């Protein structure tokens, strides 16, 4: 979902740049940009449901899932979202929608297969927290910021150049090549930085949603277990005997630089280990 937002943002940037290049004034561009972002926000649930192939299901089709959601919703005084199912073996879940009332919680059939009821509850509570915290709105606003930053960058530079026309056209021509490169570099830098900021916000919202889920269900260990199952980290807890691996000197291997630090900067979700660790801290403080 975040990825599609990022791609959309990129498309806007290209589109707006073209408009700016064609010499459209600042005011029409700002109006067009805000209209597009509003439309994206307004139709976000439909866009996401359509692009993920999720189908909204009724209480009759999935009574158990509906019951799980109704239980959490009733306990925490939240409006019940629509429920959608994605028919794929990959275990996953997401929430979408522009407000608390019009939201959708979607889970994959794979998720329902590998998780038990309490684990599903933990995942749903996580998604419900996203809805309660209006995370979709937060991220849309954040990407709005990056779009505006990009545009201001360009506008400022063009404005500065034309404003400096007092030097005469000759002066501008001499510098225009270098100036163009600087404009490009600064604009790119702005976009990269805001991209990273959006990712950081997103990761923070994930932790917040984990915390919310723990408070709603009172069982952080269930969500931790679900996360491990979903990420395939369950396989990380080995089943091979210590006496078998001891001879292989498994413990002497200095952990190589896996590039995970760089990956962390770009990812929208914090690493599962970190999330599990935080959940277990919550579990420890609850018991």
């Amino acid at each position: 979902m975040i990825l599609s937002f990022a791609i959309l943002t990129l498309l806007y940037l290209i589109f707006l740049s073209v408009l700016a290049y064609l010499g459209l004034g600042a005011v029409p561009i700002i109006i067009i940009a805000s209209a597009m972002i509003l439309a994206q926000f307004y139709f976000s649930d439909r866009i996401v449901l359509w692009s993920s192939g999720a189908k909204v299901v009724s209480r009759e089709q999935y009574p158990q899932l509906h019951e799980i959601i109704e239980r959490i919703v009733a306990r925490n005084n939240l409006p019940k979202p629509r429920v959608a199912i994605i028919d794929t073996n990959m275990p996953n879940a997401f929430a979408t929608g522009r407000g608390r009332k019009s939201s959708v919680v979607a889970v994959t059939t794979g998720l329902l297969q590998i998780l038990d009821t309490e684990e599903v509850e933990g995942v749903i509570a996580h998604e419900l927290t996203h809805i309660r915290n209006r995370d979709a709105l937060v991220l849309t606003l954040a990407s709005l910021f990056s779009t505006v930053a990009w545009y201001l960058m360009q506008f400022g530079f063009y404005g500065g150049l034309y404003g400096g026309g007092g030097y005469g056209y000759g002066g501008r021509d001499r510098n225009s090549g270098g100036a163009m490169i600087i404009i490009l570099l600064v604009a790119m830098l702005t976009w990269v930085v805001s991209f990273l900021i959006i990712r950081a916000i997103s990761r923070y919202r994930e932790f917040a949603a984990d915390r919310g889920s723990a408070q709603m269900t009172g069982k952080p260990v269930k969500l931790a277990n679900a996360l491990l199952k979903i990420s395939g980290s369950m396989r990380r807890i080995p089943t091979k005997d210590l006496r078998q691996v001891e001879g292989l000197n498994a413990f002497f291997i200095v952990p190589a630089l896996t590039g995970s630090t760089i990956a962390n900067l770009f990812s929208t979700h914090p690493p599962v280990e970190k999330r599990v660790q935080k959940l277990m801290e919550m579990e420890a403080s609850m018991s």
Partner: protein
Amino acid sequence: MKFFRRLRRNPSISKTNPDAIFALSSAYITLETKLGLKNTGRSALSLKVVDGMYFEDMKQDVQQFLDASKSEFGMRYRVVKDSYGYLWIIVEAGRMEDNLAGLTAISDTVEEKGFADQLLAVVFEFSITMDKNSIAYLIYNYKRNKFYPFVPAGQKNRDSEQEMKILAAADQELPFEKDMSLWYPLWDLPL
């Protein structure tokens, strides 16, 4: 900075730290009050068998020590060799403190005789009171100087949820292995 710390720390020269094991003398009470894990008073030390006189010598010394402290601590012991070629010294004392004292004395003897590298692990057995006939283990890995939980659930399966609960409950008191991919189990323990 983490990168440089990794470079500097050479795990192959880490020495056994007796304080790490002794942290269990208070942590086991936490496990009992928080999770209902009751220490069964059974624990075991395992080390890789080496063929030769010196190893036999060391084994004799350990057995002499155990025979001598039998009456003092009310401690029973067994020595078993498993199919992987590991020697298990199984100690049964009533109290956790006596268990810890006995086990550290054994590992001291093993280290003095020059077999520190052969030490594999110490295992402490707990019964899960909430779940009848379920057993949990705390494994202390000598190579890492760290504890990790092991809760077997049937044939070569693990109850990872219970394991994570153990980690959460005693994380503050015990030096735990944070890297779950190193939580190697010990199947068919001769305890």
